[in-house]
C-alpha cells in the first residue's frame, strides 16, 4: 500500500499541472477544473493496478482526463459553457491587464468549439506529440493532422472575431 501511495504521489506531482490545464481549457474555470482534476486522479488511483505499460502513463492519464471531461458536463446539469466563460471574464475585470484580457479571450474562443475539438486543441496547446494525441482521442494520426489544422483555423477565427468586438 505504501508503495502504491508513493507511486501515486509521484504521478500526481508529474502530471497534475498539465491535467489541470486541460480541464481548465475544457471548462473555462478553476473550480470545475479542480473537480475534474480530482475525479481524474481518483480514477488513476483506483486503476493504477490495471495499468499495463502498453502506453505512456501520461497518455493513459490524459485519456482518463479526456473521458472525465466529456462525461462531466453531460451528466451534471451544470451552467451552460458560455455563461461560465462570461463569468470568468467578469471576475477578471478587477485584475484587468492586456495579458489577462487575452487569456480570457482565448478561453472564451476555446469554449465556442465542439467538446472534442476543445480537448484536442488544449492538448495541442500543451504541446503533446501528435502520436500521443491520436492515441488519447482514438483518431488515426493522418485524420488527426487534418482535424487539428481545421481546429487551429477555427480557433484563430473565433479569437480574432472576439478581439474585434
Amino acid at each position, binding site marked *: 500500500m505504501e508503495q502504491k501511495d508513493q507511486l*501515486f*504521489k509521484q504521478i*500526481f506531482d508529474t502530471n*497534475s*499541472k498539465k491535467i*489541470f*490545464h486541460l480541464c*481548465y481549457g475544457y471548462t473555462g474555470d*478553476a473550480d470545475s*477544473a*479542480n473537480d475534474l*482534476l*480530482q*475525479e481524474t*486522479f*481518483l*480514477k488513476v*488511483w*483506483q*486503476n493504477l493496478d*490495471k495499468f499495463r505499460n502498453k502506453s505512456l502513463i501520461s497518455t493513459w492519464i490524459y485519456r*482518463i482526463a479526456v*473521458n*472525465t471531461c466529456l*462525461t462531466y458536463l453531460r*451528466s451534471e446539469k451544470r451552467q451552460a459553457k458560455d455563461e461560465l466563460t462570461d463569468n470568468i471574464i467578469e471576475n477578471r475585470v478587477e485584475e484587468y491587464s492586456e*495579458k489577462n484580457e*487575452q*487569456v480570457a479571450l*482565448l478561453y472564451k*474562443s476555446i469554449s465556442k468549439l465542439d467538446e472534442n475539438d476543445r480537448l484536442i486543441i488544449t492538448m495541442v*496547446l*500543451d504541446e503533446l506529440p501528435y502520436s500521443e494525441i491520436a492515441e488519447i482521442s482514438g483518431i488515426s494520426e493522418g485524420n488527426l493532422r487534418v482535424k487539428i489544422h481545421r481546429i*487551429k*483555423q477555427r*480557433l*484563430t477565427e473565433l*479569437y*480574432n472575431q472576439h*478581439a474585434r468586438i
Partner: protein
Amino acid sequence: MQEFEHLQSIWDTHKVEVKISSDEMLKQVKKEVNGIKRKSLLNLAGMVLSFLAVASIWIFYDFQSWTTHAGLTVIITAIGVYTFILYQGHRLISNNDFTVHPKAFLDNLKLYQISRFSLYNKLYWIYTFALSLGTTLYFFEVLDRLEVWVQYAVVIFSFAWMVFCSALVRKVAMKRERERIALLIEKFERLSTQFKD
C-alpha cells in the same frame, strides 16, 4: 489579425496552479463513504442500547404476570432481529473499501440500498406491529397499579409516538437516505463506466 502562434504564446503565459494534494483528494472521497458507514453504525448502536435497556428492565424488575413476560419477549425479539438485519446491512458497506475495490463496493452499495429500502417498508411494519403487541401485553401488569387517567395517557402517548414515527419520521429518513445513496451510486457508476476490463 492574429495567427495561431500568438494564441500558443498566450496559452504558455497562463500559468495554472494546482491547489490540491493527492492526500487531500483521497481523504475527501473516503470522507463521503465514511459518512454512510458512521450513520449505519450509530443506528446499530442505538438498537443495541434499546436491547440492553429492555433486557435490564426484565432482569431487574420482578414481574408477576405472564403477559409482561410475553410482552418483553416480543419486544426484545423484535429489537434483536432488527438489530441483526441492520448489522448485515452495515457489513455490506464496511466490507469493501471504495478506493481499493470500486466495483465490489458499488455492487454492495446497490445491495445495501435494496436492504435499506426493504427495512423502511415491509420490515418496518412487521417491527412496528411486534412492538405494539409487546407494549400492549407489557402494559397489562405495569399500568394496573396506576390511576386510570395515567393509564390512558401512557397508552395514548405510546401509540401516538409510534404513529408519528411510522408516518413522518420514517418517510423523511427514507427519502433522505435514498437520495444520499442514489447520489453516491450515480457518482461511483460514472467513475467506473470508463473502466471496463
